[in-house]
């Protein structure tokens, strides 16, 4: 059964939004620690400290939701369409990084992100 294309687009946008928020939470929490990780021990310690931050669990919850929606989408839509549309996550991450994390994205970086999105659409169609 083929579902409505707008429903598919909406659901994929929702999974990508969940993932974007998850990454924003993770990145901003790690930035707030401002640690210099130079050993496996420190990396493990960082992850241990992360598990004590409640926001991180909202992120984990969101990625769980995202996985469930994604699995649902895969039962309703063609794989190539789903993967093509899923590349909108790179655009969401880019805008979210500029707006919420105050990252500066140069023209070269925008061009690179556009190439990645275009490439994924090609891979998905191929």
């Amino acid at each position: 059964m083929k579902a409505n294309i707008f429903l598919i687009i909406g659901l994929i946008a929702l999974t990508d939004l969940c993932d974007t928020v998850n990454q924003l939470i993770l990145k901003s929490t790690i930035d707030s620690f401002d640690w210099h990780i130079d050993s496996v021990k420190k990396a493990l310690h960082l992850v241990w400290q992360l598990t004590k931050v409640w926001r991180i669990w909202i992120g984990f919850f969101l990625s769980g939701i995202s996985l469930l929606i994604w699995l649902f989408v895969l039962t309703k839509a063609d794989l190539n369409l789903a993967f093509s549309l899923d590349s909108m996550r790179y655009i969401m991450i880019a805008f979210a990084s500029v707006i919420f994390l105050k990252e500066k994205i140069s023209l070269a970086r925008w061009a690179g992100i556009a190439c990645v999105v275009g490439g994924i659409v090609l891979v998905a169609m191929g």
Partner: protein
Amino acid sequence: MIVKRNLTFKILIFLISTDLMETVAQFCFKKSVAGVHFLNAGNISGFFLFLKTVLPSPFLWVGLITVLAIFITWATILSKIDLSVAVPVASFSYVTIPLVCSIFLHERISALRGYGIFCILVGVVLVSASTRHKEKRA
């Protein structure tokens, strides 16, 4: 104060290793459900039958441990570079996964997919180069 750092060779190795681990994880998950032909998501007993088949599979557990390792590596990467660099560069798995599928699962790569893989590679190089540029100006 968060210092923006450029993408060093070491971080690039970390990013590629998360992609390789991602590939291993996907491969393991695919292998762990390889014998399952009867998944009926609307049926509780079908779901338990699915769990009974998948849970004893060593591939599942290797996959899950790999996911944990990916998270530790990803947290380390995010402590060192911009999110808007880490995420596009991590799309490298769109290059590694088709290659592994073609080698180990004998799936074919079409010409169109080949162009796409090349396009992603160009994108990854551009995004990586953009961090070096910023470092020079700073």
